[in-house]
């Protein structure tokens, strides 16, 4: 019999061989393959997983607490209005009519005429500045999203630094926190007015952390850092900021796509 190659031996070792009985027999009869297999077994059995750190019983509850504010409630799908019945009622009528085909052709004609009339009307009545205004508004929104994304990005970096900070790194951290604080206030107010409760709540939480970080006259002690992490849940906030940053980025991308898609409209 042909000798077994490494792939066949690996398959056999993990119990995924297509013909384990044949390989078993071969390994008993062929000392060369048996030696290779013993070597493979020895190598693989030496590779063991590092012990997994333990997580306490309420780990799941903590994970849920950290994400629950970022997820919306699913809405129960409502039954669609029973308008379809009228169409169903029309169907036998159309079916029975000998001129059904003619009706369909007439419908098509009406739709096409309405379409061309609409195009013509749009040409004559659309003010030339409208498309530019739309693009201008979208451009403004894009700028806001980019600036907000940048703010969240900086905040994320600060929270990461805070997470790994030692008591000696307080000076640059505090300066950055003070810098972010003033802009954060502005964004929080505008977001609140724009009616985005998730973003407003995260910025509110961020503001409290920024105040704590920037208003420590004697710098950040280890105890203060621990307190921030525990009491103000900076880890949870970091995650929240990451989620929001990616959301803002996605919004920005979609706005950019919309802008790209409407570029053709302005030519009309």
């Amino acid at each position, binding site marked *: 019999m042909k000798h077994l190659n490494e792939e066949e031996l690996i*398959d056999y070792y993990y119990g995924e061989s297509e013909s384990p009985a044949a390989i078993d027999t071969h390994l008993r009869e062929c000392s060369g393959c048996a030696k290779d297999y013993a070597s493979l077994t020895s190598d693989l059995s030496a590779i063991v997983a590092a012990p997994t750190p333990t997580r306490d019983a309420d780990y799941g509850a903590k994970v849920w607490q950290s*994400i629950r504010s970022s997820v919306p409630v699913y809405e129960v799908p409502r039954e669609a209005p029973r308008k379809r019945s009228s169409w169903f009622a029309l169907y036998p009528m159309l079916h029975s009519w000998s001129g059904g085909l003619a009706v369909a052709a007439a419908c098509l004609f009406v739709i096409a005429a309405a379409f061309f009339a609409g195009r013509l009307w749009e040409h004559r009545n659309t003010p030339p500045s409208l498309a530019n205004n739309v693009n201008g508004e979208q451009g403004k929104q894009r700028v806001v999203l980019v600036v907000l994304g940048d703010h969240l990005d900086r905040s994320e970096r600060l929270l990461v630094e805070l997470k790994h900070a030692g008591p000696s790194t307080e000076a640059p951290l505090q300066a950055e926190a003070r810098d972010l604080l003033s802009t954060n206030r502005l964004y929080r107010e505008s977001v609140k007015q724009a009616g985005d409760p998730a973003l407003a709540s995260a910025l509110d939480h961020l503001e409290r952390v920024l105040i704590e970080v920037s208003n420590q006259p004697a710098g950040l002690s280890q105890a203060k850092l621990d307190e921030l992490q525990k009491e103000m849940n900076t880890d949870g906030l970091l995650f929240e900021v990451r989620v929001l940053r990616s959301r803002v980025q996605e919004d920005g991308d979609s706005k950019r796509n919309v802008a790209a898609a409407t570029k053709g409209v302005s030519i009309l």
Partner: protein
Amino acid sequence: MEVNDHATVRTVLGGDKEAYGTLVARHSQNVFRVAFRITGDEADADEVVQETFLRGYQRLQSFESRSEFGTWIYRIAVNCALNMINKRKLDATYQIGEETDPSQKQVQVADTSAGPERTLLSREIESLQAAAMRNLTATERTAFILRHMEDRSTTEIAAALEIAPNAAKQAVFRAVQKLRRSLAPLRVNP
């Protein structure tokens, strides 16, 4: 009586957001274990757990009741962990000073005496293993961990990594071959 996962998913989709907390509590330890094994870092694993359950919630409507929620969320976790290690790859600084000098790889594992030398030896082995694992690509490493440590079948690995079963099998083969080459100095010569 404990409500099963499918019923809980229906409850969440019916508008009871809090019910998802039960699913998180039930599966977070498993998700953490696989996340830790793939990322090799506790903080990263915690982040992967959060990301996994968040994505799970967002995609809950696509969860099909013919599969198990545990298997489904496990796949998402593998995917998130894989993304995490790909992201971390960009930060190459972690490798500085961790490459073991090849001349020091010549160790004798046959010595079973306990004590500081033995401890040092196991640290050396661990360090070599860690370095060998780092030399694998993200897909090879994940496929190997799922096969060797998580005892998952080729079909499950392929589904988790969203690749063809044959590609999953090849990833495991390549990982084993590379690991064996890297760990050859540890082999005890008869």
